[in-house]
């Protein structure tokens, strides 16, 4: 079985982002970029399936600027077999991403797509579900456990009330939640090896797909600032403040 894992290059989760003064977006120049953390979990899960003998090949795909090759190399160093960059300077929204991925799935014929449940920049949580819809495949979102058996996929999902287990038809699109696994650290020799793994670059325009934005970003602003309050010295003072000043208890 082949597994396709889409990965996104995003502002590192430790960076406190700054809104641009012209309100066009968030400053990304000279900011540390990393693989979206949920996508790292997706890559890790694919590798574990390969190590267990379930998967033969892992293809990672990224869509974006040329520097996304670094993100792909990271996934290759973790253990993925080859990479594809669909290169564009354009901002690509989730619906267009799903269309590009559908195109690649049809070309590469994986049985399973494992994606992160959301990217920590746009916080959309859409692409996996949309890819499943466009392919006419089953979807298993927010996965915390994944088992292949008897031609179906048994998946435990993190839902608002706790955990839900479903059995999905194959092929399928799965999206990862935090507890699915803990991604491995990349070892130096593997970084060297990853440089030799195949990485194909395809210009996005050459695909002839409808990748136009459907959602116009009118402005991006700072959130309302929440000022720090006061330190209280004792439990008695805290209770007094909550009762008489804040009036919440």
């Amino acid at each position, binding site marked *: 079985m082949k597994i396709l894992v889409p990965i996104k290059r995003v502002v590192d989760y430790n960076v406190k982002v700054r809104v641009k003064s012209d309100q066009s977006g968030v400053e990304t120049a000279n900011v540390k970029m990393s693989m979206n953390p949920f996508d790292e979990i997706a890559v890790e899960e694919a590798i574990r399936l390969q190590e267990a003998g379930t998967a033969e090949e892992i293809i990672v795909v990224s869509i974006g600027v040329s520097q996304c090759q670094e993100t792909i190399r990271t996934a290759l160093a973790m253990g993925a077999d080859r990479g594809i960059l669909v290169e564009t300077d354009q901002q690509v929204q989730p619906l267009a991403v799903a269309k590009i991925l559908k195109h690649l799935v049809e070309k590469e014929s994986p049985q399973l797509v494992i994606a992160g449940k959301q990217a920590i920049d746009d916080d959309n*949580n859409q692409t996996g579900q949309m890819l499943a819809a466009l392919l006419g495949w089953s979807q298993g979102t927010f996965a915390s456990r994944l088992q292949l058996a008897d031609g179906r996929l048994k998946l435990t999902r993190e839902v608002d009330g706790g955990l839900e287990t479903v059995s999905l038809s194959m092929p399928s699109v799965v999206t990862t939640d*935090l507890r699915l696994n803990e991604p491995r650290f990349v070892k130096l020799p593997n970084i060297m090896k990853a440089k030799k793994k195949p990485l194909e670059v395809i210009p996005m325009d050459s695909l002839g797909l409808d990748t136009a934005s459907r959602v*116009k970003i009118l402005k991006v602003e700072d959130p309302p600032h929440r000022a720090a*309050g006061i*330190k209280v010295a004792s439990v008695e003072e805290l209770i007094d403040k*909550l009762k008489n000043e*804040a009036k919440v*208890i």
Partner: protein
Amino acid sequence: MAVLVVAEHDNAVLQEATLNAVTAALEIDSNVSVLVAGKGCAAVRDEAAKISGVSRVLVCEQDKYEHQLAEPLAGLIVSLADDYSHIIAAATSQGKNVLPRVAALLDVAPISDITDVVSADTFVRPIYAGNAIATVQSEDAIKVITIRPTTFEAAPADGGSAQTDVLTAPDDSSDYSRFVGEELTQSDRPELTSARIVVSGGRGMGSSENFQIVEALADKLNAAVGASRAAVDAGYVPNDYQVGQTGKVVAPDLYVAVGISGAIQHLAGMKDSKVIVAINKDEEAPIFQVADYGIVADLFDVVPKLTESL
């Protein structure tokens, strides 16, 4: 224009987040229908018909809708889409699962987790864990939207008398997903996302046994119990306790953060709370930058004392 709200329920009870979604829908247009798809869900249908401001309740009862699986439910919603300008659900795990599938089948771009309605095509939504706020305009004919429940008041659960229509389900014999089982957290405490008071514990709790300190305080305050990602990852509490960017978003009157350092990702889930109390022995913990009242002290001293004194 007409708005379809997808009800969230367990066939017995309507989830409160649906009431928040109805309010968001009414901000767009006064013609609001609620879809109740399920099995043996007559009680939910009756509840939905009483929501103030709802004009119509559409009911579709089928085995395949019993567990709200995304694939059949999306098929049903798509079959109704021609009659609506907007399709709305709460940004719960259910809404997030189903609505993007609906949008892709309609070839429209969904808009996730909105916090405000500016006009019928323009919405406000947080990005980057709430560290930036985007105003976005949809250029699609049908707007498919999930709303953040904590930023829209609940519509009154009583006072409405909507007409009820029974729908015929579209032909769909697909077998994508089968429900196998669920392990839902049983609790007598208020529900985390709608509780008036939330007490959350973090890595500083140290163990799952120590979490009882937080639970005792929560019970004294009639509060829900939450947690930071660190506490969930460490196995102190189940995943459904997690408050944050990728967990639950809460905005109670009072949020008490116990042994939580206050990573950006956690703040994203609670900084809209009215009053925030932080208890942490590390004076430099970022949680103090958003707390109205902070106590720099050992939580194992302070929290039991607080519980006792209340």
